[in-house]
């Protein structure tokens, strides 16, 4: 009887304390798992398929969210600048088309074509990858190094609404830090975004 009470108390305290942790997912320094997701060109792809990568710019993003849309041109520019250096943008749509029809696979293909996305745009079918990463909104960036160690998490820059008023390019600074053998600082930032439609 005493043992049961003690065990229940212990479990109770454990769950109580664990409710204070953050959203789960990766922290800086964790090794991110690879995945196998369908790209808008119909091919399945994994990070290991990318040749000569020095890092990966994973971005959870989608069609419908105005904040994602505001960053599309900046993501295109980032890919054009950094992919030749070995840091490609890997865009992943984490949303469920049942909850948000504008984020269906077909709609992704349309958008990718409209904007001529130079980067891959993957469909998180079954929505298994985004919770592993701990993405909480779109857009949400996870910069990985060559060994898939998470080096930077958060915003692309410090002004979603106005590219012209950006003062701090968090993601670019983080990539430049990796290139220089340093750790990104800040390693985590926050931005407004849309909830993930699970």
């Amino acid at each position, binding site marked *: 009887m005493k043992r049961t009470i003690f065990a229940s108390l212990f479990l109770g305290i454990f769950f109580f304390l664990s409710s204070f942790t953050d959203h789960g997912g990766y922290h800086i320094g964790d090794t991110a798992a690879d995945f196998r997701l369908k790209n808008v060109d119909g091919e399945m792809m994994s990070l290991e398929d990318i040749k000569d990568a020095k890092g990966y710019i994973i971005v959870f993003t989608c069609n419908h969210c105005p904040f994602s849309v505001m960053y599309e041109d900046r993501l295109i520019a980032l890919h054009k600048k950094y992919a030749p250096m070995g840091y490609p943008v890997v865009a992943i749509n984490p949303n469920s088309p049942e909850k*948000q029809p504008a984020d269906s696979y077909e709609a992704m293909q349309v958008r990718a074509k409209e904007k001529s996305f130079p980067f891959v745009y993957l469909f998180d079918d079954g929505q298994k990858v985004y919770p592993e990463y701990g993405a*909480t*909104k779109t857009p949400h960036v996870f910069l990985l190094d060559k060994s898939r160690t998470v080096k930077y998490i*958060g915003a692309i820059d410090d002004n*979603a*609404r106005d590219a012209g008023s950006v003062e701090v390019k968090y993601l670019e600074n983080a990539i430049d830090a990796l290139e220089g053998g340093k750790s990104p600082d800040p390693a985590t930032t926050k931005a*407004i975004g849309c*909830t993930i439609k699970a």
Partner: protein
Amino acid sequence: MVSLRLFLFLCFCVFVGSALSAQQWTMDDVKVYDDFDDLETSFDLSGDSIHLINFWATWCKPCVEELPFFEEARELLSDEKIKFTLVSLDFKKQIESKMLPFLNEHKIGSEVVVLTDGKSNVWIDKVDPSWSGAIPITMIKKGDKHLFYEVEFYSTEELLEKIKPLL
């Protein structure tokens, strides 16, 4: 002849009366904050008043879906010392074209302000350090009490459950 005129006049009065009783939102009714710090100073009410602050936007589906619960709660608690403020993250150039028509269509009666401060990395943590940046969120403040909910409410009852302990 006279009774027709009288009838038309009465119709006109009723029409005007009903138009006046429903608030028609205009740009003058909405305060726009370009700087979060200015918005923050408006948060804390004096004494034993409760301030409920919800962050939303017309482009945010779950935000729009829970607004009726806030409106209903506000009406149910109209005799209490509680103020409801809806902080919109709508874009400046869409306030007039999109947000005001939305407020009119949905007959929103709470105070509505717009936050256009683009430096969200700075002010997200000021709202609450545990906030990821996704909306909707709801804050309930009373004196030095600060409750923060990064959740979507699915009923007025759920919302009232959070407010009642502070009343």
